[in-house]
C-alpha cells in the first residue's frame, strides 16, 4: 500500500472551481463588492490557465454604438436556430460593455478610432491586443482582498446534501495532498470539454486542438454526479480552423475579408449559408464533392496586411505565424487551407452546459455556473464569460446570510448533515487511494482515452464520419462507452499527474454518455454538422424545445423542456 495522501481542509464563503476567465472575474467581483471570503481552486496556475493561455485576438461580443443588447440576442438566437435562452443572452449582453471597460482599466489595450471610440471589426466585435488578457486578470486577482488562490489543485467531486451544495473535494497535482473545501456557495467555472472525439492530429500533435486540451468537462461531470441538470449537449461545437495549426480563421475572414473558396477557386460560402455551423458544413460538403481542399482566399493581400496578420497571430496562435514563416508560404502568396475540428462541448460558443436560472444558479441550491460551463447562452465568448462570472457573484452576494445569522446554512454546521458530508468526503478520498493502489490495471488512462475518441469518431459523428451519425451508430456508441466506463473503474495511477489523467478520462466518459443520450433524443437535424442525424435529416418544429438531462443511478434521464420566453427564468420543478 502507498502512504495515504495528507488531507487539508479549508473553508471560505465562496468556492470557485476553475480560475479561468469566468472564475477569476467572479472572484474579482466578490472581492470588490462584498466582504465574502473566496477560495479559487485551479488545476494549473491562474496566470495562463483556461482558454486564454496564448491570448485572444478580439472581443467578439460587444454592443457597438447604434446597436442594443436585444440585437445581440436576436443574432445569437438566429445563429443557434432558436434553441437558446433569451433571458441568459440578454442579461449577458447587457454587461458586455461594462466588463470590457473594466478590462481596459486593468490594462487591456483596445484599438480606438480618431474620435476615441473603440474601432469596430464587423458588427459585434472590437479590436484589442489580447496576448496578456489572462495575466492582467490574474494579477488583479493576486492583489484582491479576501481571495485565496489554490493553484495546482484539481477538484473532482462536489459535496451535497438535500439538493444543496456544501463544498468540494480534490487533490494537488504536484504533492501527495487531498483537499476538503467547505463553502456554502460554489461556482463551477471549469470550462467545456475537449478530447471527447479523435482530434485532427491524433499523433505527436494530438493536443494541437482548438479548445484547451486541459478542459476536460470536469464541471459537467461533477455536476451530473451531484444531480445538476444539463442542457443542449447535442448542440456540439465544431470550429472552422487553419489546417494543421488549428489556428483561428475569424481574423482572416473578418479582419482581412477573405472568402471561403474550394480548390477550383469558387467561392462556396453563400451556397450553404453563413451561420457558424453552415460555414463548417459547406466545407465538409465541398470536400465530399471532390472540390477540396478548401481555403480562405488571402492571396493578393498587401504586404502591410500580411505583416499585420503575422503579428495578430503571434498574439493568440503563434503556431500559425511559425507555419507561415517556416514554410515560406505567406498568406499574401498562398491561400490558407481550412478544416473543421473535432466536436467539442462548450457553452461559450453553443448552448451546451448547466441548466441555470437567470442569475446563473443551477438546479442544485448554492451551485452556480458561468462561462463555458453554463448552457443556454451561445456566442457569449470572453465578455460573456466575464459577464456571467459577475452575474453569479452578484447573486451570491444578494443571497448570502452571514455565519451566525438566523437561518444560516453554515456548511457542516448541523450535526447530522455534517456527519453525512464528512462521510461523503471520505468516500471520495477513498476512491483516490483505490486508484493509487490499483494492482495490475489492464489498461492505462491514455489507452482508454484513445479508445473513447475512436468510438466517438466512428459512431457519434466525428471527423471520420464527416460529423454525421444515425440511430444505430449512436446505439453502438452508447454500448461501447458503457464498456469503457466499466474499464475506467480499474485504471491505476502511480503519481499525482496520473491520478489527474484518470479523473480526466472519467469526466470525459461521463460527458460522452450524456452527449450520446442528448444526440439520441433530438430526432431531427437542427444544426448542420453540429448535430447531423442521417435518420432524421430535416428540421422538425416538434423539436423547438430544450433537451435537458440529469444523471440518476448510472443512467442519463432526459427531460424535455418548453422554450423559455419570459425575461426571467426561475427553477420550479425537477
Amino acid at each position, binding site marked *: 500500500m502507498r502512504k495515504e495522501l495528507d488531507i487539508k481542509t479549508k473553508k471560505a464563503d465562496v468556492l470557485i472551481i476553475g480560475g479561468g476567465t469566468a472564475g477569476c472575474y467572479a472572484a474579482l467581483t466578490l472581492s470588490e463588492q462584498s466582504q465574502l471570503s473566496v477560495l479559487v481552486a485551479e*488545476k*494549473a*496556475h491562474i*496566470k*495562463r*490557465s*483556461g482558454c486564454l*493561455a*496564448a491570448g485572444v*485576438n*478580439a472581443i467578439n461580443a460587444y454592443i457597438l454604438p447604434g446597436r442594443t443588447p436585444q440585437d445581440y440576442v436576436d443574432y445569437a438566437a438566429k445563429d443557434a436556430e432558436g434553441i437558446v435562452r433569451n433571458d441568459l443572452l440578454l442579461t449577458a449582453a447587457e454587461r458586455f460593455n461594462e466588463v470590457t471597460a473594466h478590462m481596459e482599466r486593468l490594462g487591456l*489595450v*483596445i*484599438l480606438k478610432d480618431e474620435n476615441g471610440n473603440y*474601432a469596430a*471589426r464587423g458588427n459585434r466585435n472590437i*479590436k*484589442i*491586443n*489580447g*496576448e*496578456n488578457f489572462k495575466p492582467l486578470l490574474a494579477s488583479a486577482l493576486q492583489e484582491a482582498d479576501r481571495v485565496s488562490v489554490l*493553484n*495546482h489543485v484539481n477538484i473532482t467531486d462536489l459535496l451535497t446534501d438535500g439538493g444543496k451544495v456544501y463544498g468540494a473535494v480534490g487533490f494537488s*497535482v*504536484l504533492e501527495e495532498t487531498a483537499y476538503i473545501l467547505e463553502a456554502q456557495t460554489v461556482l463551477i467555472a471549469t470550462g467545456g470539454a475537449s478530447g471527447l472525439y479523435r482530434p485532427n*492530429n491524433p*499523433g*505527436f*500533435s*494530438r*493536443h*494541437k*486542438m482548438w479548445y*484547451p*486540451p*486541459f478542459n476536460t468537462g470536469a464541471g459537467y461531470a461533477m455536476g451530473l454526479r451531484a444531480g445538476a441538470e444539463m442542457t443542449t449537449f447535442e448542440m456540439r461545437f465544431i470550429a472552422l480552423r487553419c489546417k*494543421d*495549426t488549428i489556428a483561428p480563421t475569424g*481574423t482572416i475572414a*473578418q*479582419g*482581412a475579408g477573405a472568402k471561403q473558396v474550394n480548390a477550383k477557386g469558387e467561392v462556396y460560402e453563400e451556397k450553404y449559408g453563413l451561420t457558424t455551423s453552415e460555414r463548417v458544413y459547406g466545407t465538409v460538403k465541398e470536400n465530399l464533392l471532390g472540390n477540396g481542399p478548401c481555403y480562405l482566399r488571402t492571396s493578393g493581400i498587401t504586404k502591410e496586411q500580411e505583416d*499585420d*496578420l*503575422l*503579428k*495578430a497571430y*503571434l*498574439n493568440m496562435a*503563434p*503556431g500559425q*505565424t*511559425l*507555419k507561415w*514563416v*517556416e*514554410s515560406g508560404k505567406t498568406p499574401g502568396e498562398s491561400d490558407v487551407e481550412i478544416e473543421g475540428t473535432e466536436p467539442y462541448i462548450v457553452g461559450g460558443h453553443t448552448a451546451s452546459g448547466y441548466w441555470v436560472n437567470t442569475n446563473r444558479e443551477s438546479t442544485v441550491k448554492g451551485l452556480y455556473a458561468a462561462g463555458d460551463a453554463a448552457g443556454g447562452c451561445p456566442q457569449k465568448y470572453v465578455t460573456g464569460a466575464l459577464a456571467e462570472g459577475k452575474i453569479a457573484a452578484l447573486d451570491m452576494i444578494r443571497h448570502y446570510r452571514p455565519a451566525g445569522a438566523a437561518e444560516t446554512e453554515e456548511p457542516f454546521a448541523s450535526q447530522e448533515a455534517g456527519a453525512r458530508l464528512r462521510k461523503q468526503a471520505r468516500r471520495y478520498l477513498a476512491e483516490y487511494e483505490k486508484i493509487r493502489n490499483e494492482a495490475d490495471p489492464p489498461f492505462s488512462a491514455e489507452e482508454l482515452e484513445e479508445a473513447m475518441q475512436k468510438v466517438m469518431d466512428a459512431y457519434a459523428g466525428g471527423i471520420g464520419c464527416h460529423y454525421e451519425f444515425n440511430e444505430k451508430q449512436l446505439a453502438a456508441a452508447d454500448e461501447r462507452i458503457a464498456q469503457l466506463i466499466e474499464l475506467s473503474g480499474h485504471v491505476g495511477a502511480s503519481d499525482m*499527474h496520473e491520478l*489527474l489523467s484518470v479523473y480526466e478520462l472519467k469526466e470525459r466518459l461521463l460527458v460522452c454518455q450524456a452527449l450520446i443520450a442528448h444526440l439520441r433524443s433530438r430526432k431531427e437535424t437542427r444544426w448542420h454538422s453540429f448535430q447531423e442525424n442521417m435518420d432524421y435529416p430535416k428540421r422538425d418544429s416538434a423539436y423547438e424545445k430544450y433537451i435537458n438531462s440529469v444523471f440518476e443511478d448510472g443512467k442519463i434521464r432526459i427531460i424535455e423542456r418548453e422554450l423559455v420566453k419570459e425575461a426571467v427564468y426561475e427553477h420550479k420543478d425537477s
Partner: protein
Amino acid sequence: MSIRIREEKCVGCGRCADVCPGTLIGFREKKAHMDYPKDCWGCVSCVKECRTGAIEYFLGADIGGNGSTMTVTEDGNILHWKIRKHDGTVKTIDVNRQDSNKY
C-alpha cells in the same frame, strides 16, 4: 507541436513549470524537463515566461513542421519573436503590447 528545453541555458527557476496550463513540465537534476511532449497545447506560455531563452517552440512533423524553432524575449512592452529556420536563417518580428491588432 511542442517545446524543447535547452538544458545548458536552463537555470532551474521553475517559472515555466509553474505557469504551464497542463502542468506538463517537471524537473530532472534541477533543470526543467518537458515530461509530456505530446500533451502540449502549443500556447507558448512557458516560452514567454523563460528569462534565459532556454525554451524553443516547434511544429511537429505531423502538422507540417520542418525543424524551425521559435523563441520570444520580453523587453518592456516589446515582445521580440525570433524564428530560426532549419537552414539557419533568422526572422525576427517585434510586437508591442501597447499596439492593438489591426484585425
